[in-house]
C-alpha cells in the first residue's frame, strides 16, 4: 500500500506548492491595490454616476485600475453592460 500511496502522492499537489501559488496571486493583487493612486475610489464613483445617467448598471460591474505597461501608466476601465438595456 505504501507504494500505491507513494504513486498517488506524486499526483496530489504538495501543500507548500499550494501555499506559494495562492500567495503569489494574493500578494500581486494586494500590492497593486497598495500602489493605486488615492483619487481612484472617487474617480470610480464619478464615472459610475455618469454611466448611470444613461444605462442601469450594477455597482460591482465597473472595474477600474491603474497599471504600468511599457513605461506608460494605463488607466483601465472595465464595465459589463446589462443584457437588455
Amino acid at each position, binding site marked *: 500500500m505504501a507504494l500505491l500511496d507513494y504513486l498517488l502522492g506524486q499526483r496530489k499537489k504538495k*501543500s*507548500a*506548492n499550494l501555499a506559494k501559488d495562492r*500567495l503569489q496571486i*494574493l*500578494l500581486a493583487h*494586494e*500590492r497593486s491595490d*497598495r500602489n493605486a493612486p488615492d483619487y481612484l475610489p472617487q474617480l470610480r464613483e464619478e464615472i459610475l454616476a455618469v454611466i448611470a445617467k444613461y444605462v442601469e448598471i450594477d455597482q460591482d460591474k465597473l472595474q477600474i485600475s491603474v497599471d504600468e505597461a511599457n513605461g506608460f501608466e494605463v488607466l483601465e476601465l472595465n464595465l459589463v453592460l446589462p443584457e437588455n438595456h
Partner: protein
Amino acid sequence: MSRVIVVTSGKGGVGKTTTSASFSTGLALKGYKVAVIDFDVGLRNLDLIMGCERRVVYDFVNVVQGEAKLQQALIKDKRVDNLYILAASQTRDKDALTQEGVGRVIEELKEEAGFDYIVCDSPAGIEKGAQLALYFADEALIVTNPEVSSVRDSDRILGILQAKSKRSENGESAIVEHLVLTRYNPARVEAGEMLSVEDVIDLLNVKLLGVTPESQDVLNASNAGSPVIMEANSLAAQAYTDIVNRFLGEEVEQRFINVEKKGLFSKLFGK
C-alpha cells in the same frame, strides 16, 4: 554613526521579541553600545524575555512624556556590557507615544547617550505602535515564519516600510530590509509541507539575513529570562550569532536550511 533597526513582522507570535532580544544581545557581545526599546505599550514583554522585569522603574512612555530622564529609564543588562533595555509601559495605552516624542528620545539615544545601535521591538499589527517603531528606522529585520498568513502580513509591513517611514517621507535612501526566517523546519520543507526559504525570498523579494531553526531552546530561554543567543550549544543561538555577524558585514554561509544528514554515530548515540 548610530543606526536605528526595527524588528517587525505584522503578524504576532512569529518571534519579534525573541529576535530583538537575541539580536541586540549579539550586537552588544560584539562590543557595540546597544539600546533595545519595547514599543508594545500596554503589552510589554521584552523585559520578561531579557530577565529584567523586576528592575523596571521608569519606562519608555515616561521618557517620551518627560516624566523621567532617559538615564533613569534605561535598564543596564546584568549579563552583557553596553546593553540597555527601555521597557514599554504596562499601564498606558498606545496613544501615549507620539511621533515627536519618540523622535526626541531616539535622537537623545543617538547624540547624547552615544549608542551605536538602537533596536526597536515593534508590536504586532499595523497600528500606531508598529508605525512609530518603524518610522525612524535605517534598517529593518522582517521576522517571518514559513507560513501563509505570516508571509502575507510581512508583505503588508514591507509596503508600510517603503511608504510611511521618515526616510520615505524625506525622499532619503530607503530602509535596508533584511529577512529573518524563524521556526524553519527543513524536514517539513523537504516533505513539501512547508514553504522553503527560496519560496519566501521569492514571494517577498527581500534579501535573506538568516534562518533560525524551530528549537525547544527558545522556550527554555524565555522561561529563564535569558536571550536564546546566550545558550551554549543551542542551534538557535548559533543561528542568531550568524545573523548578527552577517548584519555586521561578515561573510557567513547560510545554515539550518537543509536536513542534517545523521551519521552512524549520532544515530546510535546522539539525539
